């Protein structure tokens, strides 16, 4: 039996009918076509599906869509400010903080969650926050350098 789901995604309100077992990531990717959010495992352990729900970074494969009912979701597609990239995206480009790019959406949304919560994290706090996001390409250090640069205000005027 499908149930009604009201969700605001990247500022756009949606009304949908979904099966109760549908995951938030399935609604985003399969119903709304927001394929920037990825899936890398079936065990909630890779972080590729990370989005922001009501301002917090969450793994969207661990949340039933109906649990997010009435909530506000920000996905990678909503991270930039119009045609202007967000500071974190700019830093990722400058520091080469991604390669294959498959974990990148999740990594960026985790970073967004961190910096919204704590705009000046230490290196150790950055490492702890992104420990749930697996990246098989970069070895993380370029990601940490990028986030440190944002935290230190290198992109201040742009954020």
């Amino acid at each position, binding site marked *: 039996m499908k149930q009604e789901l009201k969700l605001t995604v990247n500022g756009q309100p949606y009304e949908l009918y979904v099966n109760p077992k549908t995951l938030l990531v399935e609604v985003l*990717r399969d119903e709304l076509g*927001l*394929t*920037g*959010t*990825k*899936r*890398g*495992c*079936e*065990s*909630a*352990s*890779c972080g*590729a599906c990370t989005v922001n729900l009501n301002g917090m970074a969450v793994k969207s494969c661990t949340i039933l869509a109906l649990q997010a009912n009435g909530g506000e979701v920000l*996905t*990678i*597609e909503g*991270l*930039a400010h119009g045609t202007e*990239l967000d500071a974190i*995206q700019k830093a*990722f*480009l*400058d*520091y*080469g903080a*991604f*390669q*294959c*790019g*498959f*974990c*990148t*959406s999740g990594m*960026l949304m985790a970073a967004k969650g961190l910096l919204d919560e704590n705009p000046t994290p230490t290196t150790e706090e*950055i*490492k*702890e926050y*992104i*420990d*749930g*996001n*697996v*990246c*098989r*390409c*970069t*070895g*993380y*250090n*370029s*990601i*940490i350098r990028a986030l440190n640069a944002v935290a230190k205000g290198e992109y201040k005027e742009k954020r």
Partner: protein
Amino acid sequence: MSKYTVIGTRVHRVDGPDKVTGAAKYTFDLVLPNMLYGKILRSPHPHAKILKLDTSRAEKLIGVKAVITGKDTIGKKQGIWRRFPELCDEEILCRSKVRYIGDAVAAVAAVDPDIAEEALDLIEVEYEPLPAVFDPLDAIKEDAPQVHEGVELNINVTRHIEWGDVDEAFKHCDYVREDHFRCSSQAHLCMETHCAVASFDHSGKLTVWTSTQSSYYIQVLLADMLGLREGDVRVIKPPTGGGFGSKFELDSAQFCASLLSMKLCRPVKIVLTREEEFTTTKRRTPMVYYSKLGAKKDGTLLAKEVRVITEGGAYTSMGATALYLTGFFSSFPYKYPNYRYDGYRAYTNTAPTSAMRGFGAPQAVFVGESQLDMLAHDLGIDPVEIRRKNGMTPNYEVPGQAYIQSCGLHQCLDKIEEHIKERGKLPPNRGIGIAAYGFMSGGIFNWFDTPYAFSAALVKINIDGKVDLFTGACDIGQGSDTTLSMICAEELGVRLEDIRIHAGDTGICPADLGAWGSRETLMNGNAVKMAAADAKRQLLEFAGAKMGANIVYDLDIKDRKVHLVDRPERGLSYYDVVKEAIRGRDGEVIIGRGHYTPHRKGMISPAYSFGVQAAEVEVDPETGRYKLINVTTAHESGTVINPVGIEGQLEGAIMMAGGYGFCEDQPMDEGKILNPSIGDYKVIRSLDMPDTKILEIDTFEPEGPFGAKEAGEGLTNPTAGAIGNAIYKAVGVRITDLPITPEKVFRALREKEKQSK
């Protein structure tokens, strides 16, 4: 000022904006109109005969559109060593026998993935389980079960390399030691699992979008396995979520999606689950090593003998190449006057083993660098010194095998020695271990039997000066799209933003072997450079005539300015020259062509990179747990084309190779992989990642584009050995089987205590 305007500069990746905004569309994201979803049924047995396969109930399930089994194939076996038909041994959809847990027996296409999954449960397969063999040392025994009929002692491939007189040389050694090692398996763990969208249409043409390292290989292998003309198969590589060696053979997603689509004339998408990815997409080759090393008292290495048995798993895959390369790289990076290698690859009823970043070399370097430290310790020689004494130098010939031109190994050793000195005296239970390595810049071997150049490129200059670069190179994250665009821009004399690259689409790009063996910078780079030079020549002919330059003057283009080489201030705008050149040629666009195939460069590779790595660890002697504190690498890869790319390759390699040394493993029980999930398969995450430092050494490789060579895969080789050597320095125990888990360190420490009592 640099003589280059593009290469060596810090640029954004050309695919960067798409990847940081979620706009990049991977195969995983593709949806076509009228598309169906496929799932694959796999064997639960390590070895069994298929007695009966009944798909009738599955076919009747509402929503199911087709079910295929081995009977629907044309009965061919695939293999990437096409010059050796006996090594093409994998049906993909098994017809009469399964050989490992995960071998595919049937596939379903349905309107949604859940229905396809449900249909799998309705397929009835009756198996007759057969005796199975799992360990390569058991597999080569007389009475072992036969994995493939007619293959004696399950020996799939053997390889022999020899030079000098090894037996005689050992007689002249002051010191000889013999050791045994075991190297474990490793999962590639691409973040995007193997997947394909196949669309066969009524005109008889098949288009496949797939996550691959070589669209050309997949095109050819699909055509062969499906009975189609190569020209009727178009393989397109969208952005690809990692490969690491697992994505250049034909896989079950590509084959089954294509066959299902051919039955239905509808697009079919198959995405492997993470569990399928762990259990069926091949893995690093486990190896059992015997190594004998002999030296003079002063540390001069006289002879080495290596014997290896590798766990092949059920099929040949790329394992034959891994077997060869582990033997070749066991001699690296030293000047052994006498060397002998014998390698045997045994079939077993386990998941097939194949290529993985480093391609046999990480195993060789772990063994070689561990044993060299053991020997140096026994002779009382410093680890840096023994490597310096025996290390390869420029213009060295590996007898009968390879010719090394550029080589910066000694500069790397100097830098690492300085680094170790800077670290000063370490606290107790801390140690720094080093490992040296060398690696190839693309393979010369052509077991695939391509009739085409190994790499080729086309450069098309349009009226507005924008350049279309066509290459078969496959960017799987390593950054070849950016590196090749930089090479094109530099050679042509334009800016990076003037280049638009089209890569990895067999419908529009020249054939190319793809991304493996660290070949793209050198081989594709040379092809791209040649194509750009060809296009530039056509522009300069026109510009020379227009400028009325004295014919003794040379012309060139730099940063969009066409000028006299000796009078850079005298010149024309690149844009103006392009416009007039095209008009002057009756509207014909300018097309430059380039290709590269190595010749007269030995048997392995046209060029080799070198490096030395120092790993610093801190061990808790009570528990055996240890932490990677710092990994510092001095390396040389010729001229650095893309510095941001190299840093990423280097740090990424430390995550992967450190994991190989530190924690990654695939334990099995009766052929079943016990940890097929990202939760259970332990990798280095951000908190475990050590600090990394890069010490870049300048070299110039005459065979490479602008002097460049390999920079991605070689870096996977040293870390496990460096960690092993660091543990020994820290607490005095030697671990000879990978991975070096805390448990093994703990046991070795207790054993050492017992012996000292």
